[in-house]
């Protein structure tokens, strides 16, 4: 490295501080807001000095919202549960279906495999409404409208291509010699798959699962189009919640904090997998 002048250090420090401020401030501010009552939120000028209260979180968890005129029932915890249920089930189903398929695409090249893989990937980038709008009409006909099964099925549209493509890359990286050696030792296909391939592709599967969970959790459009109030995840529920609660800004902020906490916790816990998954296995630096 060339010698770093003081001026450059100051400039770098300033730039980095501005960057950190821009990206962290909204989260910090909403976090503060979630511990405030409307009175302190509505102060002008806004201030960071206030007496923290847990009432916002308490009323969200108990499900009753004390409005200025009346008490309102809210199902925010129901939305949170839906998010958890939909994401966990979709990713589980996605992994069960996607990992063996990824192995087939990677190791047992067969006729049409590239075409299928390519179609799946290119539809990963297609406008979701293009598939969703006809599906709403179909789902009403076959009775899948507004069911968890229907939603989990549609969630596969984002979960499955992601898992397939990331995990496939990891399977391709396993030298075939290792697998042949295991087979020559007299083990069958299934044993080779579970004892050799799966453990070696473990990090890739973890990365894909993590990323798929985050995508499923953050999804908005699928449930907006296909789910009614009692099946909605937090992303859609929070929007309805704003209209319903009117001016309870503290509770809205608390709701947002509760909704983003799970993905934040996961990201911090598994940062290495996250970064690997995000670069789609494209870059291994």
């Amino acid at each position, binding site marked *: 490295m060339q010698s770093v002048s003081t001026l450059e250090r100051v400039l770098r420090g300033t730039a*980095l501080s501005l*960057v*950190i401020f*821009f*990206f962290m401030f*909204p*989260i910090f501010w*909403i976090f503060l807001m979630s511990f405030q009552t409307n009175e302190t939120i*509505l102060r002008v000028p*806004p201030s960071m000095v206030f007496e923290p209260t847990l009432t916002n979180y308490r009323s969200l968890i108990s499900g009753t919202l004390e409005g200025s005129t009346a008490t309102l029932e809210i199902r925010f915890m129901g939305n949170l549960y839906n998010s958890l249920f939909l994401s966990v089930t979709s990713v589980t189903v996605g992994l069960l*279906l*996607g990992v*063996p*398929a990824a192995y*087939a*695409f990677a190791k*047992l090249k067969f006729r049409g*495999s590239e075409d*299928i893989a390519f*179609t*799946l*990937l*290119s*539809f990963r*980038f*297609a*406008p*979701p*409404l*293009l*598939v969703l*709008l*006809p599906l709403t*009409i179909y789902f009403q006909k076959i009775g899948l409208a507004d069911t968890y099964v229907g939603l989990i099925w549609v969630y596969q549209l984002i979960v*499955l291509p992601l898992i397939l493509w990331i995990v496939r*890359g990891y399977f*391709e990286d396993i030298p075939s010699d290792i697998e042949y050696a295991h087979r020559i030792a007299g083990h069958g*296909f299934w044993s080779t798959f579970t004892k050799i391939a799966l453990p070696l592709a473990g990090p890739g599967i973890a990365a894909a699962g993590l990323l798929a969970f985050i995508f499923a959790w*953050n999804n908005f*459009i699928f449930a907006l*189009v296909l789910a009614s109030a009692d099946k909605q995840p*937090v*992303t859609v529920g*929070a*929007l309805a919640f704003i209209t319903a609660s009117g001016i309870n*800004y503290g509770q*809205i902020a608390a709701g*947002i904090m509760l909704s*983003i906490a799970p993905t*934040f916790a996961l*990201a*911090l816990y598994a940062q290495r997998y*996250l970064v690997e998954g*995000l*670069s*789609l296995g*494209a*870059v*291994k*630096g």
Partner: protein
Amino acid sequence: MSAHTTDMPPKQRFKISKRYLPYVLSLPALLVCIGILIPFFTAVAYSLQRYRLSQPWARQYNWGENYLNFMTDPAFWNTLQVSLTYAFLTVGIELLLGLGIALLLQKRTRFNNFVSIMLLMPLMTAPALASLMWKLMTNPGFGVLSYWATLIGIDDMRWASDPSTAMLTVVLVDVWVYTPFIMILLLAGLRSLPRQPFEAAELDGVPRLFVFWKITLPMLTPFLLTAVLFRVIESIQQFDIIYAMTQGGPGDKLTVFQVEAYLNFFQSTNVGRSAALLMILWVITYILSTIFIKNWLRLRERARGEA
């Protein structure tokens, strides 16, 4: 299957499973493929029909009429213009900002790694919820950003509800959410570059700006291209941020493709027009994603070759 094949000699067993196994394993993926293709072709059919949910009796094929009508439909040209503006602004700003941050964090220090993980938080936030967060901060009554605007002399900043600043507001949210994506990709790219050219340049005392333009940037181009294409594809079909912020308003200021198609379908129940809009968007994204996938595969091959 394994039960009745156990008596066969191992070699034969291997052959049989080898022929059918790929299909058994990839069957679910095949089914999903079909599950996508059926609604897709249904959408193609809808786009060629005069089809309104409110007038099911009048439903019939009018072939290219929906598309032809777009030529003279100012709402369509508005949609196209708004979508392209949004994609251009968001990706442009995110690229410059993301590259800048990646360069700042390039050195592998503990602190830099910590910051890069911290900066991923906006990306972990659901875009729809990010919009709500910014809505709370830009509220004309109590929003902290509105207050800061008054400090620099803008007294009546109404952010997303003002036609002249609505685009700026949603672009700001998009930049907040997605810049970290470009940053993390470029950071991985920067850190994977071979060291020799940089060491040689340093020994020769080549100016840093020259190194950046002549070595860093050209070597980073494949990563830049991947990041930009990926973001353009996503940005041109942005729905969550815009819908959660203004539902396409004020007026038709933010009716990008998917928002317009959603409103057409659910509000004016004009299925034909909605499907035709989505088809045009699909053609755009299909072309871009084909280029993207090819470019990405090449990048992956290269990364693997060097590893």
